[in-house]
């Protein structure tokens, strides 16, 4: 197991990264002037990697995800996928929103078939694809239900399935399980890992929950606000499935908590500079 992972890891290093964020600054025009959301952000994500972005609110983690999604453009710097600049949203980068973003007038089947239908595939093929993913997420009984008839966990399964049905190579997830109850969240985390392990997807996952990040990620990117920047990156070298009660898990949890809440020195220093 450990060997297999190491080999996989070496191969990844040999590969060119699927995503690259190079010296990105992002400023928004606000009411009282400009708001700097991101400053000098560099990030590179390997094909098949599971990366979590973690940080307090206002650290720019969602902005970074939206830049990669193509919903925003960087004020300075470059965001690249497979070496090409990202200029707009596209099916190769599927986004899973915290509030699901399902089309309320479409059934589960039609929501999942939305991308294939938008690509102009024949109706029968769209249906076959949709049904395959409906089975995969275990919602066959709800294929013809509308989103308002589903629980939050079911809606998020549909949201994940529709980007997979659309052949996304990168899945961008913006606190996808943040609105779910603890039991549902745990189940979906497990399901997501199973999916990721069986598909070779690249996942970029924004969260503010330390435990979730350690449970899921190959690598955790720690961000801090004022303005948003990357503090450090932590490689999670724990074997999956990970035991949240184990000693190494909790050591890592403590280290990350210190980084996020207990070590304000760099941010404070930056503030002083600004005030001067």
């Amino acid at each position, binding site marked *: 197991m450990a060997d297999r992972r190491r080999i996989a890891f070496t191969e990844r290093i040999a590969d060119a990264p699927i995503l690259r964020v190079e010296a990105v600054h992002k400023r928004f025009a606000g009411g009282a002037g400009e708001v700097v959301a991101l400053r000098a952000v560099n990030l590179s994500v390997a094909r098949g990697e599971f990366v979590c972005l973690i940080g307090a609110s206002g650290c720019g983690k969602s902005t970074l995800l939206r830049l990669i999604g193509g919903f925003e453009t960087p004020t300075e710097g470059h965001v690249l996928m497979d070496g090409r600049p990202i200029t707009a949203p596209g099916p190769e*980068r599927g986004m899973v929103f915290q509030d699901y973003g399902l089309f309320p*007038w479409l059934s589960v089947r039609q929501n999942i078939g*939305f*991308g294939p239908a*938008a690509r102009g595939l024949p109706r029968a093929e769209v249906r076959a694809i949709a049904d395959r993913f409906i089975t995969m997420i275990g919602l066959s009984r709800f294929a013809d239900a509308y989103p308002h008839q589903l629980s939050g966990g079911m809606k998020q399964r549909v949201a994940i399935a529709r980007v997979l049905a659309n052949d996304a190579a990168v899945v961008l997830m913006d606190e996808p399980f943040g609105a779910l109850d603890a039991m549902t969240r745990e189940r979906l985390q497990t399901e997501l890992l199973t999916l990721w392990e069986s598909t070779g997807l690249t996942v970029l996952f924004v969260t503010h929950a330390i435990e979730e990040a350690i449970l899921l990620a190959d690598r955790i990117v720690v961000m801090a606000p004022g303005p948003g920047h990357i503090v450090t990156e932590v490689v999670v070298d724990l074997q999956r499935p990970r035991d949240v009660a184990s000693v190494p898990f909790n050591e890592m949890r403590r280290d990350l908590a210190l980084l996020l809440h207990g070590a304000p020195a760099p941010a404070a220093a930056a503030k002083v500079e600004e005030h001067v």
Partner: protein
Amino acid sequence: MRARLDASSGLLAVLLPALLFGLWWAATLDSPDGLIPQPQQIAVEIANLAGFGQGDDAFTGQLWINLLASAERVYGGFLLAAALALPLGLLIGQLPLVRRLMDSTLQLLRPVPVTAWQPLFLILFGLGAHTALLLVTLGCFYPILLNTVLGVRSVEPRLLEAAAMLGLSPTATFPKVVLPSALPGIFTGLRLGLGFAWVVIVVGEISGVRTGLGAMITDAREVSRTDVVIAGMIVIGLAGFVSDQMIRAISRHVLRWNPRQGGA
């Protein structure tokens, strides 16, 4: 459970009308020939208007022809208004250029009531059914237009993002995302418009036409047949109610995906 709820809410729905009829009945109990007829006299008159009674006067059996004439103008005017207001509302909602072009004109004309248009319409289109129909069109136009614009503009940005992320082309976004999002607003507008059409039709038929419920009421007033006037009012109320129920049934079916549609 569901059935009991329906039954009790049905009971609640008829409670107030029953109370009003009771009050009316009690107030007119001692004066069978007073200014206001008794409810039972109105019931007899409605039967007479419908041709089911023993009566034989100028109004006997006249209900159907008048109801039909009014309904034709109501639905004709409503459909014409929808045919104009829906595309215009979609354009105004979607295209800022059209919005800027049309907004001042529409807002200036909006406060002018239908009754103020009536004399002008009479001069332009003459006495007759056209004027009544066009007044209805005018009356329906704004509710449909404004709610359509509102519907288009209230598209959730998240859904536009989701569509773009799933690879939907910008040209397909309007029919696939904007239009379905606007449907609840559109149906609200259609419902308000059709309701208002029944208000306007009576105004439109007060002068210049010989048929229609408005004309029937006007004729009755001139010969002091208060019973016919009130019977006509009740028929208009019922016709409007039936219209509303029909459009609600259609809307419940079309918008069955909408959780807010249940009790609307």
